[in-house]
């Protein structure tokens, strides 16, 4: 059992569509403002109203804020899932429930403390409108949590003030219901509980932001002017955010006109087509989508690859295959994106681990797309994209200038005797391009059909191969330009652990936990594909490595096996792919189980027997 101050996890079980999200978000934000490292994970259904939804808050003074599977407190507000929810509370933990009605005796546990608050009763007595009674129950339990967890009520008051500054009546209702829950808890329970919050100062240089908002902001800063998309969970809020930021920053003060255009396409085939058309014309253009959208875009991604047209594709990954589980998280599109489209195609991929890297990688993706004249994918996921994360304040270098790659100006074209699209490659195998509307001497025919280096149609083996081979070399050359992996070595480590994207926090926490037990491992988080020399070096300098990722088929492991010289048997998989974010426990359990006897001599502290679960 943890000592408790600023180190615990709570889970809130709700019915979706009842307004719980705002109460839960309020709590998370209040903890953030108390300066304490915190994370909030919304585990929501693909539904508008009536299905189970959970919210998890983990507080950790040392900054370990990956998902916890060990719940000190459960707020059980959903009778449908009550039996399951109560089973998840740790021994000696607490359960807060609505005691307006008696608890089913069969569901009571001896080793859990029950905190009954008559929430429905309190709200029915104090509010007349039926909808308000339901909504305010959430704020009332938030009030009770403030009491038992020692949440700073002044901060909660500030947050409500900001939120409802223009809606006085709502502000009053919220205040009243918060107070109802708070007072009841204070009068009936020993507040605060052994685990609770105390103000810290860990967040003064931090912000609270979700990855979709951050990536949209990154696209604005990158200078993207054309966005095309088809609505799809979990990427929709990225385009919503792009629109919001464009309305704020891209309305021309002189003309009142929009210095951007957002096209809601008829499908993802069209969305990527629009991006390619805009990229062909020289605009920075992007689309945001999820796995099903990538499946549809495959055809035209091959066109952009072969005709060498820049495009940026944001893939907020969700659980596949097929419709899968649209509101659950996964890293299942790695291989699909790496080799998207028929024939020989390979694409540059970026793997941000947090909203901060989403913002940072967006301009990078446009630079790479234009420098290498090719589609570039940013692979985030639902957990990064839709959950609020505490990350360092975003920084922008005002000296940044977009890398537009090799684009010939009218004057440069004028000097050329005859423009030949796929000749005159630079050291990165990139050939200069011309844009429509500039100079008729630069005109050529862009085509997805077989072409020679002059851009002309061909069906001749040598001519075809010449272009394809250069494309292969160009792809390899891009390895030096994608973000380098993050590597953390520990003296005496006997193996490596490799991961990507949103697994970062959980894996790093797991390696710290293992180190405490004497199991030492080096860490590498790959951030881009193609893999650079440092990835190969890490693989070469370890006898074996675990690859931690969130998909069934070990896609990162496959990609490493295919695209580096690592022997397959050197890589062992730890795969967690049920759809909820990764926890350190998944990783420690997986590694210890795989190490088996080999780990035992290294273990100095007894390791509890644990099952991998989600």
């Amino acid at each position: 059992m943890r000592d408790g101050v600023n180190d615990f996890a709570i889970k809130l079980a709700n019915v979706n569509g009842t307004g719980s999200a705002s109460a839960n978000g309020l709590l998370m934000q209040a903890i953030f403002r108390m300066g304490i490292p915190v994370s909030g994970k919304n585990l929501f259904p693909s539904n508008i109203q009536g299905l189970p939804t959970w919210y998890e808050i983990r507080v950790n003074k040392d900054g370990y804020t990956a998902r916890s599977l060990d719940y000190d407190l459960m707020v059980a507000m959903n009778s449908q899932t009550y039996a399951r929810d109560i089973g998840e509370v740790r021994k000696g933990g607490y359960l807060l429930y609505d005691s307006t009605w008696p608890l089913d005796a069969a569901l009571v546990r001896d080793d859990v403390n029950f905190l009954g608050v008559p929430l429905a009763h309190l709200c029915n007595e104090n509010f007349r409108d039926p909808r308000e009674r339901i909504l305010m129950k959430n704020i009332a339990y938030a009030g009770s949590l403030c009491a038992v967890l020692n949440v700073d009520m002044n901060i909660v008051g500030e947050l409500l003030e900001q939120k409802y500054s223009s809606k006085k009546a709502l502000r009053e209702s919220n205040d009243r219901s918060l107070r109802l829950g708070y007072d009841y808890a204070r009068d009936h329970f020993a507040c605060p509980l052994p685990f609770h919050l105390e103000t810290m100062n860990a967040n003064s240089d931090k912000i609270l932001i979700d990855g979709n908002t951050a990536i949209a902001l990154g696209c604005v800063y990158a200078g993207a002017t054309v966005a095309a998309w088809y609505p799809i969970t979990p990427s929709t809020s990225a385009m919503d955010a792009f629109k919001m930021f464009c309305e704020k920053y891209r309305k021309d003060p002189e003309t009142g006109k929009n210095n951007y255009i957002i096209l809601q396409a008829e499908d993802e085939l069209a969305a990527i087509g629009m991006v390619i058309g805009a990229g062909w014309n020289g605009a920075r253009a992007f689309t945001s989508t999820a796995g099903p959208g990538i499946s549809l875009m495959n055809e035209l991604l091959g066109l952009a690859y072969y005709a060498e047209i820049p495009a940026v594709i944001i893939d907020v990954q969700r659980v596949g295959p097929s419709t899968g589980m649209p509101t659950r998280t996964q890293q299942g599109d790695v291989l699909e994106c790496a080799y998207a489209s028929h024939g020989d195609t390979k694409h540059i991929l970026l793997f941000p681990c947090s909203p901060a890297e989403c913002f940072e990688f967006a301009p990078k993706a446009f630079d790479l797309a234009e420098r290498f004249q090719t589609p570039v994918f940013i692979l985030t996921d639902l957990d990064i994209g839709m959950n609020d994360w505490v990350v360092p304040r975003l920084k922008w270098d005002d000296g940044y200038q977009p890398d537009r790659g090799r684009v010939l100006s009218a004057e440069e074209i004028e000097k050329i005797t005859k423009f030949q699209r796929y000749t005159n490659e630079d050291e990165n195998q990139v050939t200069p391009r011309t844009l429509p509307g500039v100079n008729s001497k630069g005109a050529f025919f862009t085509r997805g059909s077989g072409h020679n280096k002059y851009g002309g149609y061909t069906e001749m083996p040598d001519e075809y191969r010449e272009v394809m081979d250069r494309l292969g070399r160009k792809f390899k050359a891009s390895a030096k330009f994608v973000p380098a992996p993050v590597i953390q070595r520990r003296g005496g480590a006997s193996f490596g652990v490799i991961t990507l994207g949103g697994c970062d926090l959980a894996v790093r926490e797991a390696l710290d936990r293992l180190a405490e037990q004497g199991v030492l491992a080096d860490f590498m988080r790959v951030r881009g594909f193609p893999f650079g020399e440092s990835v190969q070096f890490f693989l070469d300098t370890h006898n074996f490595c675990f690859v931690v990722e969130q998909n069934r088929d070990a896609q990162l492991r496959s990609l490493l096996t295919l695209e580096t010289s690592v022997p397959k048997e050197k890589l062992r998989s730890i795969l967690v792919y049920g759809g909820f974010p990764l926890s350190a426990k998944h990783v420690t359990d997986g590694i210890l189980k795989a190490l088996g006897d080999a780990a035992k001599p290294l273990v100095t502290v007894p390791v509890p027997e644990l099952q991998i679960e989600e």
Partner: protein
Amino acid sequence: MPSIAKPIATHPSLQRNELGMTIRDYEGAMSTLCAGCGHDSITAALVRVFWELATPPHMIAKLSGIGCSSKTPTYFVSGAHGFNSAHGRMPPIATGANAANRELIYIGISGDGDSLSIGLGHMCHAIRRNVRMVYVIENNGVYGLTKGQFSASADVGTKSKKGERNRMSPIDPVMLGLSIGATFIARSFSGDKEQLVPILKAAVAHRGFALIDVISPCVTFNDHEGSTKSYLYTRQHEFKALEADFVPPAGEVLANIGQNGAVNVTMHDGSVIRFKGVPPNYDPTDRVKVTAYLEEHQGKGEVVTGLLYVDENVPDLHEMNKSADVPLTRLPYEKLCPGSAALDKLQEDFR
């Protein structure tokens, strides 16, 4: 698409347009389509149109999908950028291109397979967005490159070269366009350059999506007896609804406006489409009347041709989106990036 460069031998007496260019300067590579293909006549009409309008070649962007029709952008205006994209996907690519740079003249060349089957949805949505472009469907009722399958525009009862009869009802791009709010709809016949050239010129002037369905017989797979898209059938059944003249902005508007059944439609750029001999009860700006008129004649088995419908009052893609008057591609980066101070300020909201 294979192409053969044409020898450039220009006779000194060839007429020059106001840019000092001859009609040969608006040609492209040698066509590799079958001899007698209707598509080549459309190509010739386009060459004439752009030469007569004296359009600077680099201001034209030619886009196409896949199929025989989609090869033709190679055969006109070699000084313009071209994009031979993927089957059925030209409309979204043209939409994105237009979004990025509104100054170019976009000409999309498609076929009945490209536009009425694999890309039907895309075409419809480009119409709904009113993307400013000339959109030509070279319609022959048949898949040529894959050797003679029926397309979605094949009429009920028409016979394939192998003798099979089509049983499924056709998709008529003209009626479809009328039903989903197309703002410029014409039908023509590749064999009638006199009719096609003014229609294409008016389409270039149109502020929005100009849909032109051109019956373009396939001499190899769909020009036999029993076909309803053959040269002979089209000539026998063509019903010229109304003749249109295109008067450029600087041109002199004919004196007898409003007489002898003439109707003038002023285009956004000040040019005028002059409809001659308009039948009673026909108004090319009235969707309901046009629809009724077409249904009546098509019921009689007539292929109605001409510039059938125009609406100049619908905003195009950029007007609907209130996007900048200059091409987005020309906006300097400094105008696009809010900068670090704005970012610092914004982040106060993320606390």
